[in-house]
C-alpha cells in the first residue's frame, strides 16, 4: 500500500480538496488555448483525410488497396488488432488495478478509459470497411431475415468478435460514464448558473448531488462493473486472437495466442497511455497528480508486458522447431530472415530490446525519455500485428501463388485517419471533461497527499501543533491505530 512511509505520495503540491477541484475544472471552464485549436485542427485534418480515403475505398472498391489473391488481410486487420490492443490498458488500469487496490491508477484511469473507448471506435471501423460492402454490415447480426432464415455462424470467431467488441465498447462506456457523473456535477456547480456550460453539464451530470445513498450505490456499481470488465478485457483480445488461432495457417494456429495477444494488448495500451499522459500532464499542468511515481509504475508494467511478449516470440520459435512441422518451421524462419525480415526485427527491437532500458530507475523517471520509448512501443506493436498477418499469408501452401504485399496510399491514409480520429476524440475529451477522476482523487488525498503520506508520528504531531494540517486525522501508520498493522 502507498501509505507506507517508504513510498512516495501520489498527490503532490500540498493540495486541498478545493484545489483539486480548481485544477481540474479550470481547463474546462477557462479559455481555450490557441495550442488546443492548432492541435485539434491538425488531428481533425488527418481524420477527414482518413474519412475521404474510406469513402474512396467504398466508392471504388477494395481494389484500391494493395491486397492480392494471396494476401487478403493486411493493413486493415493489422490496424484493427492494433487499435483493439490500445484499448486494453484503460480497462486494465480501471478494472484490474481497482480490484488489486492499486491507488496510483486513480490519476490515470479516467483518461485511459477514454482512450479505450476511442480506440475501440477506431478499431470498429476496420472490420466494417474491409468487408468491401459495408452497407451489408447488418449481416453480422443474428436478426430474422429473408435469406431463407439464414442465421449467422456461431462457430466462427469472426462472429464472436462482433459480440466481444460491441460488449467491450458498451461496458467500457458505461464504466467510464458512471465515474464521470459525479465529476460532471462538480463542473456543473462551478459554472455560472444560466451559462451554456451550466446547462450542458446539468444535462450530462444527470442531476447528481452526492448524497450518501448515491455514493453507496456508486461504489457498489463501480465494483461490479470492475469485476465484469476484468474477465471481459481478457476475453476480448483472446477472441481477437481466435480469429487467427482457429485457422489452419502455420504461424497462426498456435495455442499460445490468447495470453500472448492479451499481454501484447496491455503492452501497447500502456505505450499509448504513456504517450498521451506525458503530453497531457504538461499541457494541462497536472504534474502534481500524474507524478513521476505514476510514470515509473507504468514504465514497469510496460517492461513486464514487453518481456512477456518477447517470451512469446521465443516460445513460438521453440515450438515451431519442437513440433517437427516443416511448414511451421519454415514460416518462422521466413518471418525472421525472409523478405519481411525488416518488419520482424523492428518488432523485436521495439517490443523486447528497447523497453529493457526501463530497468534503470533514472530513465523510468525521465518523462521525455519515457515518451520517446513509448513511441517505439506503439510502432513495435503495430509491426507485431503486421508481421503476424502478412508473413503468414504471403507465402501460402502453393509456391506459384507466393506474392508480396505493399500498401497503397489509400491504406496508409486510412491508418493516418484512424490516428486522427483517435486523437481528435481525445482532444475533445481533454477539453470538455475532467481528465482525472476528481472524486476518487479527493477520497485518497488524506492517505496519499504529500502533506499526509509517510509522516512519522512525531512529525505529524508537530505539524498538527503548528496548525499546518488543520485536521483531526490520524496518520494511517500510527502505532496506536489498531486498524493498521
Amino acid at each position: 500500500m502507498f501509505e507506507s512511509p517508504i513510498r512516495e505520495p501520489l498527490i503532490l503540491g500540498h493540495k486541498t480538496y478545493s484545489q483539486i477541484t480548481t485544477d481540474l475544472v479550470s481547463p474546462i471552464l477557462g479559455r481555450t488555448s490557441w495550442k488546443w485549436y492548432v492541435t485539434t485542427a491538425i488531428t481533425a485534418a488527418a481524420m477527414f483525410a482518413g474519412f475521404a480515403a474510406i469513402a474512396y475505398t467504398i466508392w471504388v472498391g477494395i481494389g484500391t488497396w494493395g491486397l492480392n489473391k494471396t494476401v487478403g488481410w493486411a493493413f486493415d486487420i493489422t490496424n484493427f488488432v492494433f487499435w483493439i490492443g490500445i484499448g486494453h490498458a484503460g480497462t486494465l488500469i480501471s478494472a484490474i488495478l481497482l480490484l488489486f487496490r492499486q491507488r496510483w491508477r486513480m490519476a490515470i484511469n479516467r483518461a485511459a478509459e477514454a482512450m479505450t473507448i476511442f480506440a475501440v471506435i477506431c478499431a470498429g471501423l476496420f472490420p466494417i470497411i474491409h468487408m468491401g460492402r459495408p452497407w451489408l454490415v447488418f449481416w453480422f447480426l443474428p436478426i430474422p431475415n429473408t435469406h431463407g432464415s439464414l442465421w449467422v455462424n456461431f462457430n466462427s470467431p469472426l462472429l464472436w468478435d462482433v459480440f466481444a467488441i460491441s460488449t467491450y465498447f458498451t461496458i467500457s462506456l458505461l464504466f467510464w460514464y458512471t465515474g464521470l457523473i459525479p465529476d460532471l456535477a462538480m463542473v456543473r456547480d462551478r459554472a455560472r448558473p444560466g451559462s451554456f456550460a451550466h446547462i450542458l453539464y446539468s444535462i450530462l451530470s444527470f442531476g447528481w448531488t452526492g448524497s450518501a445513498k448515491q455514493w453507496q450505490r456508486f461504489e457498489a456499481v463501480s465494483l461490479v462493473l470492475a469485476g465484469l470488465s476484468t474477465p471481459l478485457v481478457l476475453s476480448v483480445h483472446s477472441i481477437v486472437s481466435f480469429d487467427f488461432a482457429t485457422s489452419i495457417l502455420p504461424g497462426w494456429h498456435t495455442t499460445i495466442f490468447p495470453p500472448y495477444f492479451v499481454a501484447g494488448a496491455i503492452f501497447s495500451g500502456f505505450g499509448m497511455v504513456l504517450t498521451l499522459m506525458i503530453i497531457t500532464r504538461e499541457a494541462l499542468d497536472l504534474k502534481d497528480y500524474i507524478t513521476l511515481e505514476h510514470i515509473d509504475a507504468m514504465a514497469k508494467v510496460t517492461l513486464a508486458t514487453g518481456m512477456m511478449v518477447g517470451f512469446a516470440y521465443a516460445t513460438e520459435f521453440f515450438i515451431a522447431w519442437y513440433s517437427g512441422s516443416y511448414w511451421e518451421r519454415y514460416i518462422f524462419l521466413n518471418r525472421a530472415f525472409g523478405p519481411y525480415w525488416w518488419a520482424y526485427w523492428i518488432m523485436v527491437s521495439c517490443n523486447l530490446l528497447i523497453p529493457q532500458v526501463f530497468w534503470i530507475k533514472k530513465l523510468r523517471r525521465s518523462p521525455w525519455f519515457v515518451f520517446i520509448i513509448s513511441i517505439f512501443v506503439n510502432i513495435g506493436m503495430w509491426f507485431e500485428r503486421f508481421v503476424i498477418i502478412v508473413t503468414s499469408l504471403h507465402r501460402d501452401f502453393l509456391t506459384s501463388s507466393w506474392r508480396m504485399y505493399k500498401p497503397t496510399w489509400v491504406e496508409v491514409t486510412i491508418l493516418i485517419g484512424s490516428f486522427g480520429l483517435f486523437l481528435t476524440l481525445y482532444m475533445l475529451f481533454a477539453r470538455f471533461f475532467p481528465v482525472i477522476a476528481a472524486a476518487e482523487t479527493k477520497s485518497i488525498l488524506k492517505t496519499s497527499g504529500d502533506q499526509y503520506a509517510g509522516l512519522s508520528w512525531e512529525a505529524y504531531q508537530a505539524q498538527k501543533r503548528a496548525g499546518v494540517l488543520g485536521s483531526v486525522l490520524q496518520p494511517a501508520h500510527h502505532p496506536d491505530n489498531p486498524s493498521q498493522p
Partner: protein
Amino acid sequence: MAKYLIGLYADEEQLLAGVEALQKASIPIHEVCTPFPVHGLDQLLHLKKSRLPDAAFVYGALGTLTALSMQIYMYTIDWPINIGGKSFLPFPSFIPVTFELTVLFSGVLMFLSYLAVNRLYPGKRARIYDPRQTDDRMVVAIAAEPYWQKAQAVFEKTGATEIKIVEV
C-alpha cells in the same frame, strides 16, 4: 421547495463525528451530501446494503439464458446446417457469445437500474443544498424544523464551518 438547516463540514472525520453527535441527540438527518465517497458514512447512517450487485447477478443469468436459447434456436432447431457432419449443437462454440452476452446484460441493466434507483436521468435538475457540496464541503441537511435549534448547537460543537437555512 422545502427549507433545510444545513451544516457544512470541511473534513470527513469531523463530518463523521458530527453525524454521530446528531444521532446521539436523536435529531433526524434528512440527507448527507459529500463531494467524494466517505467511508463509514453509510454504516453510520444505517443505510441498507445496496442490492444492485444481486440484481447484476440476476441480469447476468438472464443474459446467459438469452444467449444460449438464441444460439440453440438458430443453430440447432430453426435451421441446422450440416457442416462436414459436425454436431448441430456445438456447445463449446456457444461459450464466447454466451459469456459476452452475460456481461453485456449484467452491465447494461445494472447501469440502468443504478440510474433508476438513484433517480438520475439526463437533464434532471440537481437539488443542491450548497454548490460547494461537489467541491470541498460535506453537507448535513436537517429537514424537521423543530430540531433546528438543537441541530445548530451540535453543528457548532462539532466544528461545522458554516451553518445556514437554505431552500431547495
